[in-house]
């Protein structure tokens, strides 16, 4: 085991009358990188804050290795949540490094210094006076160098310029390989980061929409393009999550596995009808599933599969 087993059972969190999470059930695969994706307001930050014991859920239960992390000294020390907004008050970068060094036993200061150099974060400057991108880069460096068994990044790359973002992804994968742990990265900008994901957890309006291995999800989106009548015949009986028309040509996006749901001969049947089949990226699938305009949306996932990573 290289990270705690995270189990979320019927978790609800409300801010006044706003329900951020509504009966969330999920497992986070230990020792893997999970992408937590959802639209703005889907409940991503709230879920991560609850996992990191920043707050107690109003209802339900979160356990890390079977125990409630809230005010649990061992589990809180094993968890690091880096938020885009930052949590360093009026400290400067040097003071923040000194603080993390003194309270986090797994923190590698030399690695953090190396990352700050690579991300070009100015030293000895108050963190709240840094630009948004520099603040994000500082948080990313702290999160990586903390090497906490459960590391959570909440939209951490927002504001970073492209070279810094790519350097962050590069470092994350390299350090994850050297120090395997459970990593959850929340995002609503998926295209750049989806290649890192081993699992994907999709939240929509405070509920779990999907929780699957990323490779499975990558197979789940199929776009069928061609003449309207032929397309409709082909997709009949399958879950259509989007339809786009241009004259008589229709592009229908199916939430279906190319092999198991459409059948092994799907390609041959499509070709016979003059149709084109193509896989849909996780980002496109996410957009269609959460747009609220899905032609025939899939049922919500009650509880996610939790395959142990190989």
């Amino acid at each position, binding site marked *: 085991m290289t990270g705690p087993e995270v189990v979320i059972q019927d978790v609800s969190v409300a801010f006044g009358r706003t329900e951020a999470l509504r009966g969330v059930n999920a497992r986070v695969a230990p020792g893997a990188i999970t992408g937590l994706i959802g639209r703005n307001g889907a409940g991503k930050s709230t879920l991560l804050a609850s996992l990191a014991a920043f707050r107690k859920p109003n209802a339900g239960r979160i356990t890390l290795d079977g125990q409630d992390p809230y*005010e649990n000294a061992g589990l809180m020390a094993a968890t690091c949540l880096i938020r885009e907004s930052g949590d360093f008050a009026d400290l400067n970068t040097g003071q923040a490094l000194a603080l993390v060094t003194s309270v986090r036993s797994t923190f590698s200061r030399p690695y953090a210094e190396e990352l700050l150099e690579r991300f070009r974060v100015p030293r000895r400057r108050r963190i709240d006076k840094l630009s948004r991108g520099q603040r994000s880069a500082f948080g990313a460096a702290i999160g990586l160098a903390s090497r906490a068994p459960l590391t959570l990044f909440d939209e951490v790359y927002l504001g970073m310029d492209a070279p810094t973002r790519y350097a962050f992804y590069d470092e994350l994968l390299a350090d994850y390989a*050297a120090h395997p742990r459970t990593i959850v990265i929340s995002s609503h900008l998926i295209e750049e980061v989806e290649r890192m994901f081993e699992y994907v957890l999709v939240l929509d309006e405070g509920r779990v929409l999907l929780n699957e291995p990323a490779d499975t999800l990558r197979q789940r989106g199929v776009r069928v393009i061609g003449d309207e009548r032929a397309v409709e015949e082909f997709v009949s009986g399958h879950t259509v999550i989007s339809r786009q028309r241009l004259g008589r040509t229709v592009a229908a996006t199916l939430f279906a596995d190319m092999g198991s749901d459409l059948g092994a001969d799907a390609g041959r049947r499509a070709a016979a009808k003059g149709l084109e089949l193509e896989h849909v990226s996780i980002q496109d699938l996410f957009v269609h599933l959460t747009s609220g305009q899905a032609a025939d949306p899939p049922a919500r996932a009650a509880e996610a599969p939790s395959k142990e990573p190989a």
Partner: protein
Amino acid sequence: MTASTPRAHVPTASPQSASVITVAGWLFRRNLNILAWFAGMAVVTVLLIAVPMMQRFQAELGPSLWEAFSTSGAGWFVLALGALAGQYLPVLVAQGVTRRRVVLGAGLALTATSLIVGVLIVVGYLVEAELFGRFGVVPRLSGEHLFASTSQYALVVLESAVRSLHFGLVGLLLSLAYYRYGGWLGTALLPLTAFLPISIGLALLSLDPAAVGTSWQNLNGASGVGPLLLAGFDLVLLALCAWFGSTLALRTKPT
């Protein structure tokens, strides 16, 4: 995305949670920085304001000026440090420290800071005695104290430290209340979170509360039991802070 650099697999050590002492040490070091700045300002104030004023109003010298500051200003200063410690609760919790440990660490840090404040108050009395002495005057104490003379250093430190710690814990409590309830309700609760505990504490210490601007009357006459009573009350206050702090949710955007 660029290719990641392969690295050797290194087993990560099991995380150890930060102890109360570690938290206290970090908060204490921050307090020391502010204390050093404050002491520097005090020296400048004495040299640039107090000495010229003494020369101008020589004839009226007599009552201790330092006494007025040490029985009120020092307390409010440590109250500000306590409030600052409360501000760092989210910072430390975000680094994996439990809220209870942060509050207990803050209590320890404030205790150590208060002892240093007590020592600085003794130094202040000595400096004042030296300055007054140059004009042939002995500073006169006007309030009730545990000590009869400022040369009873241990008693001066004890009284000052206990009083400062009390103010510091009140600062911690009101800071946590502001974090929990926000500006309006936090301010509305000041009678409960600040004025009431300060008044009770000062009454227990058997000092004249007028020195800190309250109208609360003494419960007891001056006696050696005051610091003990106040220390006991401060333990209750610290336990209250630890309980209240442990219920605080870190602010989260509802997203």
